[in-house]
């Protein structure tokens, strides 16, 4: 199987007031297409940060920082890429460097190739189930479709909603759904554009054991039946056991193992 994602020497530091917290200290990680990898680690170990960087939602640290007191820091940009600062490390997706991509390419990548599932579902409260699922499909769709009331990929959305047992909830808004239903909507939304990589950030973390298990069944089913590549962050060893491979994040570094 070919390599889908590779993270090389990723470093990430957060500044909180006077304190600097180094979350990732040189992550090296790769995964193949069709693989299901679980990322485990204690709270605050940088699992979500790693997922966000892998999914082009965040960037690694810029490396060239020149302090210019009292005006702050100057970031020296990568001379080969006008779009991004020089980074401590690099993310490769299908062999392409993310740091060399323009803003537009990164947006398209998030829209077409990555699907995000968050712990807190993050559905838009003003939209109903169908509209929430269709949101990524509408991004990039031409204006005339909105003007004529057309919905891109509506058939696909209906299929997903039916597959996840939400047909009777199609017109309901997130506030009218249970936690499990919301998470199923979030997964359907992540899958609408048939992404190459599904990034799930503790998708069962906010659910009871039974509902959480049902959500996991959905994700594992996707992996097994559709060969969906899945990068799942969890701190639950039982969840991690279901993955093809588990990586541990300890003090900002990867430790592979089952």
């Amino acid at each position: 199987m070919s390599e889908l994602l590779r993270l090389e020497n990723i470093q990430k530091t957060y500044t909180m007031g006077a304190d600097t917290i180094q979350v990732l200290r040189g992550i090296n990680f790769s995964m193949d297409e069709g693989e299901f990898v679980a990322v485990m680690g204690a709270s605050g170990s940088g699992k979500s940060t790693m997922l966000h960087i892998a999914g082009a939602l965040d960037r690694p640290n810029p490396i060239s920082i020149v302090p210019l007191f009292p005006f702050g820091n100057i970031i020296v940009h990568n001379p080969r890429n006008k779009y991004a600062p020089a980074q401590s490390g690099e993310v490769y997706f299908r062999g392409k460097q993310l740091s060399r991509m323009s803003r537009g390419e990164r947006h398209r990548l998030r829209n077409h190739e990555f699907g995000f599932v968050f712990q807190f579902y993050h559905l838009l409260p003003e939209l109903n189930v169908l509209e929430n699922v269709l949101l990524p499909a509408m991004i990039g769709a031409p204006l005339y479709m909105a003007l004529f009331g057309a919905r891109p990929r509506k058939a696909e959305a209906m299929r997903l909603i039916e597959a996840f047992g939400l047909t009777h909830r199609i017109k309901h808004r997130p506030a009218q759904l249970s936690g499990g239903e919301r998470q199923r909507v979030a997964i359907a939304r992540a899958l609408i554009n048939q992404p190459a990589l599904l990034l799930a950030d503790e998708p069962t973390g906010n659910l009871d054991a039974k509902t959480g298990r049902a959500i996991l069944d959905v994700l594992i089913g996707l992996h097994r039946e559709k060969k969906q590549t899945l990068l799942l962050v969890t701190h639950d060893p039982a969840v991690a056991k279901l993955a093809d491979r588990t990586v541990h994040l300890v003090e900002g570094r990867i430790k592979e193992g089952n």
Partner: protein
Amino acid sequence: MYKLFLTLRYLTRRKIVIFPILVVWLCVMMLVIVSSIMGGFVDRVKETNHELLGDIVITSPSFAEGFARYDELQKALKADKELGPLIQASTPTVEVYGLVHIPEYQDSRAAVLEGIDPVGRSQVTKFRESLFNEYQAPVQAVDDLAPHLPATQAQLVEAAGANAEKVQKQFGSLEDESEKLELKQMTSVVKYPLDYWWLIAIAPAAGIVACILLRARRTRSVWGGLVGSIAGIVFLAVIVLGLFWPVMFPRQLKLVNDAADQAYSALNQAERTLQFAQSLPAGNYTTREQLAKAIVPPVPNFDVPAAMTQPGPTGQPGLPADGCIIGSEMGFFRRNRFGNFEHGVNPRYTKVIVTVFPANQKTGGISVNANNSVQRGLTMVDDSHSGVFDVDQMYTYADFNLVQQLAGLDADPQTNTGARAQEILIRLTPEAEKGDLVLVRAKVGRFVRDFQDAHADVANLPLEVQTWDEKQARYLGAVQNERVMVIFCIGLMSLVVLVVIFLIFYQIVRDKTRDIGIIKAVGGSEAGVAGIFITFGLFIGLVGGGMGDLCGWLFVTHTNQIHELIFHATGIVIWDRSVYLFDRIPDTVDVRSLIVFFVVAVWAGVVGALFPAIVASYQDPVEAVRYE
């Protein structure tokens, strides 16, 4: 696509959106109303001034001395190859300051006595249309009789008589009702609420009792609850009555008096119409034009009916043979709430004594004293309502030659000076009027200069040639300035709209931080996120501006009806037409202002949303999606 989609969803599913829309809506509506009504005033003032002066005015450099050869100048202008075809009519005027005294009313007014040729004046200005007996009353009679056409004279008399009888009955019953109501009000206990302070004092006392006993009610005390309820009702009732008494109580009387006022005017008109019908030559009348020809006199004049000038049967002297026309606002006519002057059934012929103070070289120079004042008895034959208040309250019109003589501007054979005028009013042909008035004025100016060069005795200084609006520039400029100032002030107030939109959007952006993170996580760009909020602002401007324009337009076009509605509901007269120039509140919407305010509303919506939109676009999606 998602920008438009999300914008529509936010618009339809977030209640907070109503507030910026409402603010934009109300501001635009307010601006449309103020601009249109003020604009209506300005336009009406301009129109009346134009109607008063014609198109071009040639003025004497010296008011007291006037200028000679005015007849020759008019003829020369008309004969000129270039200017002649552009001029429809011209007329000279002469003015002198003085006093008007009406012995019958034992009242005097400072006045300007203006000498005019009524026929010529009517060709240049709308003088004829401003006259009541000469024009307005007969035209109204034609309007009243026209629905009965075709009819014979006898049938018209019958119809007018029946109408007069009906109006008479109506007026009689309204008068009776008014008397009864007045008596009721005079004897009423609640005439003036403040006289019965104790009644109002009950309200807070009842309120306090209600509050104390509310506790008793909560503790399920039946008596406490009952007394508390009664006290509460008394409290509310007195407050409500106290608020509305001063307005509501006299309302009924006001409405009846108002209806009686209208009925009185209608009665006078009905009787005038009956007289006109009776005076019609016998025959068959089929068309309105035929009727108008028989009723409306063809030209205005200062003629006093011969019977009026004869001594009376008891030996009292007859009225002077020279007629004059009094300005309608000189205070000799009452004006009702509808802005109509109350005229009797018959033309009011009464003696007017004018005392003028000519102050030119012929009459002894500029030192005005009692020795060179001139007094003359005239007979009021009509009244003129031009619509320009300053004119209607100051001007009395008499025959040109007579006033010329009184002002000492007539020909003087001893010094060999010709008769003089002070102004020549010129009306251009409709085609020339549509063209460049300033250009024609310049041509007339050159012609007048050449004329003066050729005739040294016209005047010592050059004559002034102005267009009608140049002549009234200071007055019109002041009215225009008022309009600009009011719109500017309201526009300044409307900056609040921008701040409100900004604040509400900023709040929405803060509320939507997580949504922004989600949108970016699923592939939305910075520009896309900013676009959502800018489109949102655009929609608020479009909806608010559109609704504001629509409501403003509806309000302005129905201003007079709304005013009547308020009057009938409360008895309050907001627009007292008896003290205003115009008898109708301007109700024409300025389309340009509709467009301008709509564009400004849309602009304000976009600008108000711009900064919050930029803030939103730079939100870090990771921060947004990290927490619930």
